């Protein structure tokens, strides 16, 4: 079966004065129908850049390249601007971190919802309106006809994110990319939105790429996980594999500091991992995490570390962790 989205060796460079930031350095990603892939990493790790690269929505000046970037057999790299615009919002939907500013303040919710449908489906006003009401009800917004006439500022953050989700699903896309969809929301609303996403996924059978820095979100939603660090994937596999037997020390350290579900009140501040992330402006040798890794040996800093796979569980480490743990902790 062909992959829905298949990306090999994705790279993103952002030119700055006297050089370039290598924000993404050789990332492989793929996703099947109906699957949830979580890309987890710190801010600046290149996780958002990867998704924007897929959508060809990178900031001005940023340059993407890849050995392969195919969506249902279409080569996204060779697609014209127009061709890509036809896929965006229709076949691949995307929602963002800031629901407060992601909607245009000058137009009603209805206008902004219907616009996508009319663009991609060449639908009339009435059909688009019906579809918009249908979608608002689907994402759990009551009183949809009234909401259509409202402006974004009249809605709460949680509602706006629901509107964004509805908007991205207007044309029944194959993939929904959600870039930190809950980080700007209150904790209780976060949970609701995540439930909604999971629920919609089972109902509609769409694939979801969820980008987050929140391991709790990953534990709740992921089928497969990719842990990114300094523009590279350090570990990838099914949620069970990554959470149950983390092989990369970085993943292990992240999980070590993760609280146990159900004991949220005991939540402690995450212990910062000592050391610094390597500068993304230069090429560095060896493992990106070596400077902060307590298992690092001299060769970690000099040898190129390839991503090795065992049973679909990939990790880029010369001295991987061996101990199984956390299976019950993560609840998977």
């Amino acid at each position, binding site marked *: 079966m062909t992959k829905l989205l298949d990306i090999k060796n994705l790279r993103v460079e952002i030119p*700055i004065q006297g050089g370039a*930031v290598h924000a993404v350095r050789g990332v492989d990603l793929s996703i099947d129908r109906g699957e949830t892939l979580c890309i*987890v*990493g*710190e*801010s*600046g790790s290149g996780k958002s850049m990867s998704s924007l690269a897929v959508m060809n929505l990178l900031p001005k000046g940023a340059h993407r390249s890849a050995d392969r970037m195919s969506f249902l057999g279409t080569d996204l790299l060779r697609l014209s601007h127009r061709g890509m615009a036809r896929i965006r919002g229709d076949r691949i939907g995307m929602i963002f971190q800031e629901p407060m500013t992601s909607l245009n303040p000058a137009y009603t919710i209805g206008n902004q919802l219907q616009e996508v449908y009319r663009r991609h489906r060449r639908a009339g006003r009435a059909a688009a309106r019906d579809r918009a009401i249908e979608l608002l009800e689907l994402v759990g917004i009551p009183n949809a006809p009234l909401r259509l006439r409202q402006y974004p500022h009249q809605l709460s953050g949680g509602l706006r994110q629901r509107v964004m989700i509805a908007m991205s699903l207007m044309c029944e896309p194959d993939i929904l990319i959600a870039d930190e969809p809950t980080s700007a929301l209150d*904790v209780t609303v*976060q949970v609701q939105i995540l439930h909604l996403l999971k629920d919609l996924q089972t109902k509609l059978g769409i694939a979801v790429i969820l980008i987050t*820095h*929140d*391991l*709790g*979100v990953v534990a709740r939603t992921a089928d497969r996980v990719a842990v990114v660090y300094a523009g590279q994937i350090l570990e990838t596999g099914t949620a069970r594999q990554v959470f149950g037997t983390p092989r990369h020390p970085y993943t292990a350290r*992240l999980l070590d*500091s*993760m*609280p146990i579900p159900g004991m949220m009140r005991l939540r402690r*501040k*995450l212990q*910062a*991992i000592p*050391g*610094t*992330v*390597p*500068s*993304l*402006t230069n090429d560095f040798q060896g493992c990106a995490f070596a400077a902060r890794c307590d298992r690092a040996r001299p060769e970690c800093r000099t040898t190129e570390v390839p991503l090795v796979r065992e049973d679909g569980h990939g990790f880029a480490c010369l001295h991987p962790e061996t101990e199984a743990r956390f299976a019950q902790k993560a609840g998977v």
Partner: protein
Amino acid sequence: MTDISTETPIEDDFVRPSRLRQWLSHGGLVIGGTILFITIFMAIFAAYLAPGDPYLQGLGDRLQPPIWHDRGSWDHPLGTDQLGRDYLSRLIYGSRISLLIGIGTVAIAGLIGTTLGLVAGFMGGRVDMVISFLITVRLAMPLVLVALAVVGLVGNSLFIVIAVLGLLLWDRFAVVARTAAAQVRNLDYVAAARALGCSTPRIILQEVLPNVMGSILVVVTLEMAHAILLEAALSFLGLGVQPPLPSWGLMIAEGRDFIFFTPWVIAIPGVALFVLVLGINLVGDGLRDVSSPGGRS
């Protein structure tokens, strides 16, 4: 939920170049600064730089053409005016008037506007309402007309022009200082200073003022340019600096009748005025760019 963002130190990728390097790499700032420097130099050393006496009339050689003209001569490199006065000397001495107007006006207007703005922004509430209202009233008055009327009423001299412009051009200082002070007001260190029982004037002077100086400096350049242009316009209309002072605006007015045959008597002081104002504006734009990395405009 577990948050793995934020706390990780990241090596500083974008090492900022030194202040001076940054300033020098800004083309507009360098050009503007050079123009301003040359003008100030000219104004200070006018007595040494000017080839002749700017007031000495020579009825024998009136309206001599400048050196690039066929009949030009090195006796008067920029020619002479309708009274036979050496144009280059008048131009050099004229820079004193423009700079004096610019600096004097900005000193008065800056003091009034910044004080009002700081007080309004920092105190908020009713004080802010009153001062904002004053600003609105000031903005509603037609600037050129009021300046002309007041100068016409009180009589005209260099110092009256400075005083009138100073009393009129304070609005932008007030607006900028008010906004900046209102932003600073709620910052931690100001709250701390308050908690320590510092008096309001003291907090404004020691904690707030230094933080708004950057924005004020930009307004200083803008209003200096504005004042110089206004003085020239007032003098041109006969209600500013009085003859025989070599104000550039006045020189243009005096040359107006000769536009048909000796257009350079208008062109030369106009170019000087334009270049000086351009230089000051470039410095202002440059300062704004350098102080806010977000970009220009």
